[in-house]
């Protein structure tokens, strides 16, 4: 890592005193200087806080502003007003309450599905890149084959067959979406295994798992973190699509996708049933994508502009 720092040093004289800082700290410092990335992180933090608070409150049986599942037929399809900020749906349920109540589903699916796909992708990619040869060949052909499938339809098929619930959705998204990570980790390992410090570690007699996890993996951390952050909105959008088609978490539990799905019948009379949940999905996904892109820029060893 010091080599990359010294190539950057000639132009970034101001950074000289910081040359000895760790790559992780440098990435963090550069990320904090990017206004887009910081704004996106704040938005993500807000979503996270909302999901956490409403999640805990619903466990305790406390709901605000209303109970998301209380139907009030006299109040059905009411446009946004002071009483119902985002209007009500066809059963008179408060849309804001349902949006808040559904937020933890999206974020849980996003984070946990990415964790699953990271686990598989990193393991498979590390094995493939470190050992090479026929193992690599077989693994990469399987990855190529999976990449040929239209992933959304594959996920839809598997979720429909397994039965739609949050567990199955997370596992299936994770099982289908690890291929990108595996390719990336493999490429990192192919270059890193030839470095001098890995050869030195081998010469010292450190065992293979030690080399893979303690010496190579930490040096490949930056691109892995970036794919993870970008994987979260992919999973959120996939979950929303499944919910929309009726194969997400099942009613009466509200999810951002199924509010739109329920609302589509009243498309021309009740725009608020479409606009607000979609906005929630859109803003959450956008925040993750922008944060991921800012992280990628911060991780690059030299700026693109040169």
């Amino acid at each position, binding site marked *: 890592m010091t080599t990359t720092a010294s190539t950057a040093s000639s132009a970034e004289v101001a950074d000289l005193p910081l040359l000895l800082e760790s790559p992780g700290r440098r990435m963090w410092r550069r990320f904090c200087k990017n206004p887009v990335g910081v704004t996106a992180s704040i938005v993500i933090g807000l979503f996270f806080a909302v999901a956490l608070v409403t999640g805990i409150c619903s466990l305790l049986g406390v709901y605000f502003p209303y109970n998301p599942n209380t139907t009030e037929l006299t109040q059905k399809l009411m446009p946004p007003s002071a009483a119902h900020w985002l209007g009500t749906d066809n059963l008179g349920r408060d849309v804001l309450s349902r949006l808040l109540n559904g937020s933890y589903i999206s974020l849980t699916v996003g984070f946990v599905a990415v964790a699953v796909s990271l686990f598989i992708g990193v393991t498979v990619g590390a094995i493939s890149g470190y050992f090479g040869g026929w193992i690599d060949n077989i693994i990469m052909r399987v990855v190529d*084959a999976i990449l040929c499938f*239209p992933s959304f*339809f594959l996920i839809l*098929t598997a979720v429909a*067959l397994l039965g739609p619930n949050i567990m199955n959705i997370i596992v299936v998204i994770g099982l289908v979406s690890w291929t990108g990570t595996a390719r990336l980790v493999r490429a990192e390992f192919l270059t890193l295994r030839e470095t001098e410090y890995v050869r030195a570690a081998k010469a010292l007699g450190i065992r293979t798992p030690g080399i893979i996890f303690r010496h190579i993996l930490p040096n490949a951390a930056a691109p892995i973190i970036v794919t993870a952050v970008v994987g979260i909105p992919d999973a959120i959008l996939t979950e929303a699509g499944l919910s929309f088609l009726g194969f997400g978490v099942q009613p009466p539990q509200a999810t951002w996708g199924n509010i739109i799905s329920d609302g589509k019948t009243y498309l021309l009379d009740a725009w608020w049933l479409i606009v607000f*949940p979609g906005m929630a999905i*859109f803003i959450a996904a956008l925040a993750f994508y922008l944060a991921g892109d800012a992280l990628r820029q911060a991780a690059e060893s030299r700026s693109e502009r040169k």
Partner: protein
Amino acid sequence: MLNFIIRRLAISVVLAFLISLISFFIITLTPGSPYPWGELNPKITPQVKEAFKKKFHLDRPLIEQYWLNMRDLFNGNLKSIKDDRPVLQKIGERLPATISLNVLAAVISLSFGLALGVYAAKHAGKTPDLLTSILAFIFIAMPGFWISYLIVIGLVRFTDVPILGTQSYGVFFPNAASMWLDRFWHIALPAVVLSIGGIAVQSRFIRASMIETLREDYIRTARAKGLEPDTVFFKHALRNSIRPLITGIGGLLPGLIGGSVIIETIFAYPGLGRLGYEAVLERDYPTLVAINFIVAALILIGNLISDVLYAVVDPRVRLE
């Protein structure tokens, strides 16, 4: 060149085999009953179950099931559970609609993506670059079904553009031109919605490729000998940067076809995606196996073609 094509073909055959295994085992290895009906349905006697098992070879060992399934698929004996029609025939009916929709969407994605990417590269590092990059992420982050409905709400309120299906029924068209215009409107909306994500992805690829090319020595040489900056940019750099467009075509396909499940459902467009969704709703196993397999195989062929095209454009690739 021939050598390259043969090698790619050999790899594709291996991939096709893996694809067929995956699409088959998704169905068979999924826990739960393979029957398209509930366990407690009183109309389903053990005889009916036996007949169903026999029909789909579920009484055989797994390897044999796979073989029989693939054989049935290829000689057209694999039949839909729902209406007992050959699955290949059902897919064949939907294929033209899906292909025309996806080709149109790909054309839109590539052309607008190219324009946006070149524009961003031209202003690399400045405000327009930042704005186009944020715009690209906005495009990727918008759920397709949401944007479809927003467009539908807007169009129905303010215009009388036809929306659902492939053509308007019960409408008299005075001439062929107006009929084709009507068809065009039907395909245009879903194609635009489908291409939104592709535009964003392509623009990022093109931008990255342009910026890389602009760092090349021959660009510096061209500038040094005093050529107009625009000539260098649009002639020397652009021509050498559009190669990713070719790989882009291959890369677009899975996303397009996957996305068209939702978009075709919304616009009641009779393509493969909607057939797939109907099959999922009806738990129509044979159709699901066949669609997953055929779409993946189509994508494989698309990738093969784009690889070969790439090798035609860039001879260095052949040596790999």
